[in-house]
């Protein structure tokens, strides 16, 4: 026996080493399901490798900054001009979007939605990868020192990236969403169909568990569903590129990730998410009807009102002053743009007086309910004078205010006051 071992010493050692590794592998595979602790060898390797990576990335970044900020400035003026234009455009968009957001906020209050807030994020720099195309992980330069924890989601401005799997002292390992061991809850933006986002062995991204009888088109956007408990709901995931029949009556949906996973530089780690009921107090005291009415097209400014209308009181004067002329108003009310007239009467920028409440029901109600004050106008489309009078009378009459008070948005809002007759009578 001794002779045999001596003779086959090297082979015996090989078998021993392989057996030890297989045993270790089996223990780890079993432990993955339980609470796995980071093995010391991983800590050593990462501690040895990542400082070098950090150093090189830092040096590269410094050299890049020096070159781009102080030496290579070609085209900067043009870029600056373009960016300024873009900012102006974005500001316009922002106004529109903020109105939409405020309105959505009120609707959420009504429906009792819970909102997820990304209350705290940590910016991190990607410093390296796992070095294998079979293991899609990257290392970031923040770790335990930035209070990162496993399972924290990692995102970029474009979309989701992955989740933290291991945290070391000054670095962390992030599993990308296109790794085959990765998974996330996802939802198709248009059809609201939910599925499971999975990586493929070749680094692709698929949406799994969507029934094959569903209609999905290439180009459809995919968002996180929030169902996995890791990624916040509604974050961009990617776009559908290919839909085909899969196995087990499910579709095979290929997705192009929104974030460029092969060129990651800076990422954000979401370290804290809060889920809370939206409160109306957060949204301010503005009413949804005000926002809606502002969104309606308005009549351009005009010089002060003609003396003929000035006797109708302050509001009447203002309301009629906002109208280009009686005939124009008649034209609008007669069916061309009834809403524009209503909008003009309530648009704060157009009227110096406090907002009138009379036209609000038109804004908050469906078109069928619009003619709260319009019937008399539409009955006499040819008589501009009558129409203007009718409108201004309606605007000053508190009676049409009531529908606003009963509107869902107002009733659900304990802080929003019902339409104030006194403001109407100013």
């Amino acid at each position, binding site marked *: 026996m001794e002779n045999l071992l001596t003779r086959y010493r090297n082979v015996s050692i090989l078998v021993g080493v392989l057996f030890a590794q297989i045993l270790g592998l089996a223990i780890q595979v079993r432990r993955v399901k339980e609470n796995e602790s980071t093995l010391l060898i991983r800590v050593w390797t990462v501690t040895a490798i990542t400082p070098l990576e950090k150093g090189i990335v830092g040096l590269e970044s410094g050299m890049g900054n020096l070159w781009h900020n102080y030496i290579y400035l070609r085209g900067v003026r043009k870029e600056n001009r373009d960016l300024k234009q873009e900012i102006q455009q974005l500001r316009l968009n922002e106004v529109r979007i903020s109105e939409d957001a405020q309105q959505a906020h009120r609707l959420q209050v009504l429906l009792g939605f819970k909102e997820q807030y990304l209350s705290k994020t940590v910016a991190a720099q990607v410093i390296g990868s796992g070095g294998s195309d079979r293991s899609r992980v990257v290392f970031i330069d923040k770790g335990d020192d930035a209070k990162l924890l496993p399972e924290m989601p990692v995102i970029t401005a474009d979309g989701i990236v992955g989740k933290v799997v291991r945290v070391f002292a000054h670095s962390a390992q992030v599993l990308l969403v296109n790794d085959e061991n990765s998974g996330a809850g996802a939802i198709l933006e248009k059809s609201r169909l939910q599925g499971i986002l999975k990586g493929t*062995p070749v680094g692709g991204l698929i949406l799994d568990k969507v029934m094959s009888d569903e209609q999905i088109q290439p180009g459809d956007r995919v968002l996180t569903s929030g169902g996995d408990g890791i990624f916040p709901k509604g974050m961009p995931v990617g776009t559908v590129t290919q839909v085909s029949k899969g196995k087990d009556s499910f579709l095979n949906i290929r997705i192009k990730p929104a974030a460029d996973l092969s060129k990651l530089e800076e990422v954000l780690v979401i370290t804290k998410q809060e889920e809370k009921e939206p409160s109306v107090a957060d949204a301010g005291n503005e009413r949804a009807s005000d926002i809606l009415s502002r969104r309606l097209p308005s009549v351009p400014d005009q010089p002060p009102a003609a003396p003929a209308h000035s006797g109708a009181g302050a509001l009447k004067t203002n309301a009629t002053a906002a109208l280009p002329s009686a005939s124009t108003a008649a034209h609008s009310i007669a069916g061309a743009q009834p809403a524009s007239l209503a909008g003009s009467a309530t648009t704060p920028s157009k009227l110096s007086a406090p907002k009138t409440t009379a036209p609000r029901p038109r804004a908050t109600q469906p078109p069928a309910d619009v003619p709260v004050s319009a019937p008399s106008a539409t009955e006499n489309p040819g008589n501009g004078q009558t129409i203007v009078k009718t409108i201004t009378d309606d605007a000053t009459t508190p009676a049409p205010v009531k529908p606003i008070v009963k509107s869902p948005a107002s009733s659900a809002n304990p802080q929003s006051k019902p339409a104030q007759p006194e403001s109407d009578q100013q």
Partner: protein
Amino acid sequence: MPITYTSGEQIEVYRFNLPITVLVPLLALFLQAFLSWKLPFFSIFDLPLLVVIFFAVARRSQVGGMLTGSIIGLLQDSLTQLPLGVYGIANTVVGYGASSLGVRLDVENAGARFLVTLFFFAVHEIVYFSVARGLVRLDLRWNWPHEIAAAFANAVLAVLLFAMLDRFKQRT
């Protein structure tokens, strides 16, 4: 003929000093991790495997070769999210095989190195796939074009890399 059969007495056995023994594998791991991120196509190469083959063939010691393979493989595993041992087992087998071959054959010239790397890359991939699919239950797919391209790319790189590393050899 690039590969020549030589007797044990004719074969040169080399050793490396400690800093090279430690730093070259670490540098290979670093470059593999760093360059694969910066240049995604670089992930087709397997620098740690090439270092294992180089050390194993140069030292011509089966135990030394398998231990080198085992340690470098485990370090390589440490950078992935997979359990430790997948690369470890594959590199152990390669280290043992390469050193066994080095004992019997003179693989000092470029042609021999090209063929040896081609062969051991295939061995590595077969062992890796077997372990990953059989033990870790990974859903890996064998992709012939990719594997063949990777084998040739690594063999070409090995010829250049081994020529560089030859400078650190010390005769025993």
